[in-house]
């Protein structure tokens, strides 16, 4: 029996690919602004954006060879901390099909993989739905 989708104020659909534009940054900034205002937020990612929370990214970026003593959190770590800092207010859903297709099936445990067949439940559970980018 699939778990019901917790109601949220906003559903952000992040479909644009990372490393192409500042879309991912805009999505994370928007999520931060919404959470700062007390909103409940769910983020559904499709396409290459599913790689953002791939377990293979680890906790840190590759070492910066021009500044090797400095450590940088990976984008997966940034998202993980954003989720854990907002229990019951931020949910990050990864399209199972897109993740599997891109070899990113192994995800950090803080996100939930979902089938596209239940996508409409997420839309119904949100007060507003916003699309950001295309796959």
């Amino acid at each position, binding site marked *: 029996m699939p778990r019901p989708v917790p109601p949220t104020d906003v559903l952000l659909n992040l479909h644009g690919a990372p490393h*192409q534009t500042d879309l991912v*940054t805009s999505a994370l*900034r928007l999520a*931060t602004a919404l959470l700062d205002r007390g909103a409940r937020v769910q983020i559904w990612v499709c396409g290459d954006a599913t790689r953002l929370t791939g377990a293979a990214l680890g906790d840190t970026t*590759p070492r910066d060879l021009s500044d090797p003593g400095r450590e*940088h959190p990976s*984008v997966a770590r940034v998202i993980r*901390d954003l989720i854990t*800092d*907002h229990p019951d207010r931020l949910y990050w859903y990864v399209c199972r099909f897109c993740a599997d297709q891109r070899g990113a099936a192994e995800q950090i445990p803080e996100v939930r993989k979902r089938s596209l067949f239940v996508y409409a439940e997420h839309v119904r559970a949100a007060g507003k739905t916003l699309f950001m980018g295309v796959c």
Partner: protein
Amino acid sequence: MADQARWLLIVEKAYRGSVETRYADALYVVPELHRQSGGCDLVLRGPAAGYALTTDFTPELRIGGRTLASLPDPAASVTRVLAAGVTVMVEEDGLTALGRTARDRLLPGVRVIEGGALASRWPAYEQVWFL
């Protein structure tokens, strides 16, 4: 333009992510390519012309409770590329699109070249790469 440059590197697609890209922007690899190739020239054109300008922008951003202070910093990247000995050029067309004062805000050491004339320089190089 340095006579010994063998590879011409061209960047025209700019601002390719921040939180996921961090310090490793499109110019990150240029000093190393310069070292390995025997010499590179770099041309910034189109939206990437903005990389060649000084700015007061601080590349810092808060995501949730974390402040990221290692976002792409194009001006710092260009400065690092110049310090490595790479000749950096910017196309006039791209510069003009950034406003009348853009030329006054160029980073020291960046040269302006005529827009549309870039292809005529290609035969002088062993390789031409769009990064």
